[in-house]
Structure formats: structure tokens, C-alpha cells
């Protein structure tokens, strides 16, 4: 699916992750800032990429600032940002959950 507008979800509070999703042309690119990048960077990227794949988003720029979010939080924030970027907030994507 095509990203219609840049969107943001999440905050910079502890245990949260702030994710920004905007148009891209070069697959999914993820710019990740995290204190636990070394330990969990790959896992965080995987959760984001997998969740975006459920929305059939193949191209997009992701900018994520992680403050120690658990996988479920990362997934929830990614779903929120994807729906906002696709402007489909009013149609919950049950299968993505």
C-alpha cells in the first residue's frame, strides 16, 4: 500500500518508542536510535518490518527513537503509525493484531 502522508506514533517517554513513517522509494529503511541498539536493534527492526509487511507497505522511511519499548509496544506503535500514514485509522486492521 502507498503511504499517503508522514505520520507519527508514540512518545519519547521511558518504555515507549516514537516511530515516524514517511514516503520512501527504496524499500523499508529504518533509522533507529536506541540505548539497547546493540542488544535488541535487530529485534526492534524485525518487529517494525514484519508489522509494516502486514499492511503491505513495501516502501517507506522509518525513523524510530526507542526508549526501551517491549515488542508488544513496538508492534502497537507501528500499527498506529502505519494506519495514520495510510489514512485508514477508522478501519481497524484486525488481522495485523
Amino acid at each position, binding site marked *: 500500500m502507498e503511504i499517503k502522508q*508522514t*505520520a*507519527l506514533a508514540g*512518545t*519519547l*517517554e*521511558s518504555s515507549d518508542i*516514537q516511530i*515516524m513513517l*514517511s*514516503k520512501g522509494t527504496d524499500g523499508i529503511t529504518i533509522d533507529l*536510535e536506541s540505548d539497547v541498539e546493540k542488544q535488541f536493534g535487530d529485534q526492534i527492526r524485525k518487529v517494525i518490518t514484519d508489522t509494516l509487511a502486514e499492511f503491505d507497505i513495501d516502501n517507506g*522511511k522509518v*525513523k*524510530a*527513537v526507542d*526508549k526501551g519499548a517491549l515488542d508488544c509496544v513496538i508492534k502497537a506503535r507501528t500499527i498506529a503509525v502505519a494506519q495514520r500514514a495510510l489514512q485508514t485509522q477508522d478501519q481497524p486492521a484486525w488481522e495485523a493484531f
Partner: protein
Amino acid sequence: MNNEIVDLHLNDPQVRKTWEDFLTSLGITDFQSQETDAIDFTLGIYEGDKLVATGSAAGNILKYIGVCNKGVDQGSRFNTIVSALISRLFQQQIFHLFVFTKLKYSDSFQHVGFHELAHSDVAALLETGDSSIDDYLDAIPRVADQTNKRVAGIVMNANPFTRGHRYLVEQAAGENDVVYVFVVNTDASLFTKAERFELVKQGTADLKNVIVVNGGDYMVSYATFPAYFLPAPDQQVDYQTTLDARIFRDRIAPALNIKTRYLGTEPLSRTTGIYNQVLQRELPPQVAVKIVDRKTTTDGTIVTATAVRKAIADDQLDSLAALLPPSTINFINQHLESLQFRIKKGMNINGN
């Protein structure tokens, strides 16, 4: 209202005083009206009735961020306030943000996803959002085999494009394979950015090796160099221009293989005079600085855009032929009324 984000209405004198006292206690003391008037909104966090964190935004620039960490985890309030500012700006469809801050806070901003564009001994400029300086540079047109060409750059506001600008571009075009002319993007001049850009394009259309591009947020913009548009003390101009020069030297010039930057001498504008000095201090040896003497008319008057704007205000169009290329004269003749209207409405024509 503990630790909740609230809007601070600075036109309330009580709130304003609390806000100024709080920031003053943190070492932020510049509350001149030209700085504070630009603020679009201000957020704050109270602990009891005590202000413990605040941040403001002016356009796409974060300003006046101050946080007290007493009694809480280091950085948590900072994250909260920055997070709230970013969300608010996003709701307003502003997706590309800048912050100009003291060098010691650069790390804190990098920790919340900002990337540093440049820093000097005292200050740093950072950006975040859905586009970056790399996207900006990627979008600039290039010529074949550019790494082996002689490339020069000129930055101009061109308010409006005069024979003086034309002369400067001609000199550069004669001595180089490619010349980039960056037109200042900030809309704070008599001629709008679209008008200025178009007049530069028309005025250089016959010079085949000149590429006119938008200076974006990275060259003499409100973010990099606010003092160009607002009156400011010399030292502040120096701080800001140092960052502007370093962005050019470290980011823009290497990406485009720009080896020389051309400047016009600046006998009349103090701010631009300081800017030119700073460029000469900062750019070499990576980028050579070449100063071209001001163009004068046949009777020896210096060609400046300031004189052109004054002539428009005074309705003295006869004097313009000596100062302007035909494309700019045509434009002024066609849009005289609207230009004079803008001046009447209070557009400052004596600045840059």
C-alpha cells in the same frame, strides 16, 4: 496538574514572568521581542505550582527549551517536553524540525533522534523529521563526471536579482565548469522566495553552466542564520554564521564537489560584512573563498538591491535601468503595485 503538559500563554504577564524567571535560572536570558514574538506556542510542565520544564516552537524551530531535573530521573522531563513539542508540530503538518542549542545539549537532542548538522565551540544545530540534509543534497541536479569538474557555489538572497548579482555569477561562470547558485529559501524579504528564485533563473538563463537551486533550510535560513533577517548583536551574528559556514564546508560542498565559494564585497550591510569575514575564516582550506568586487554603474554608484527597493518605495523607477537586468525590470514594472503595497503594509526594505 502534576507533570501534565500544559499550554503556557505568554501574553499573560503572570505566566510570562514565571516562564522568564525559570529560563533565567537555567541561563537562558535573551527575551528580546524579536525572538519571543516569533514563538507560535509554548508548552510547560508544572510540579505543584512550580514550573519545572518548558519548550517553545517558532515555525519549524524548537526554542527556549529548559528543564529542571530535581527529584526525577535525568532526562525524563526533557524527553516529555520534546516529545510533546514534536507531536504538536506534527499535528500542524510540520514534519521537519530544527533546534539551535548550546553545544553541551547537543547530545541530549541526539538521544531523542535529532542529527547534528554542525557545531561550533559554543552552539550546535540539529534536525529531525521526515527529510534530512542528505535528502536535500540527493535532490540537487548534477552534471556528468562532476567529481572531476571545477565547481563553485554562490549563496544569494537576490531581493531582487541585480546587475551586481549577475556580475558575480558571470565571474564564477567564467572561471569554473559548473556554478551552483543557491537562492535563500526563507520568506522574509520584499520579493517572495518564488519571485526571487524565478528572477535569478531568468537573469542567468543564458549562462549554460549555471545551476540555480533552492538553498533549502541549510543556507542562510531562519534555522541557520536568523540574524540575517532580524537585527542582532555582532557576537550573535558570528555564532550563527559560524554554523552556517560549517554546514556549507562539511556537508554541502563535499557532496557537490564545490571547491570555491564566491562572495561579493559588502560595503553597506554590517551583518553580511560579518558573514563574509566568518566565511573567510571557516571555509578554507576545504573550500576556497573568492571575493569579487562590487559592481558599480558607469557613473561609479555601487549596485545594491537595497537601493533598488528604495527606488520602488519612492516610485523612482527611472534609476533602475542601470542597476537591474531587463528580466528584473520587467517583473517590477508588471508588479509595481503589489510590491509597493507590501512596503506600505510594513515590509522592512532596509534589511537584507
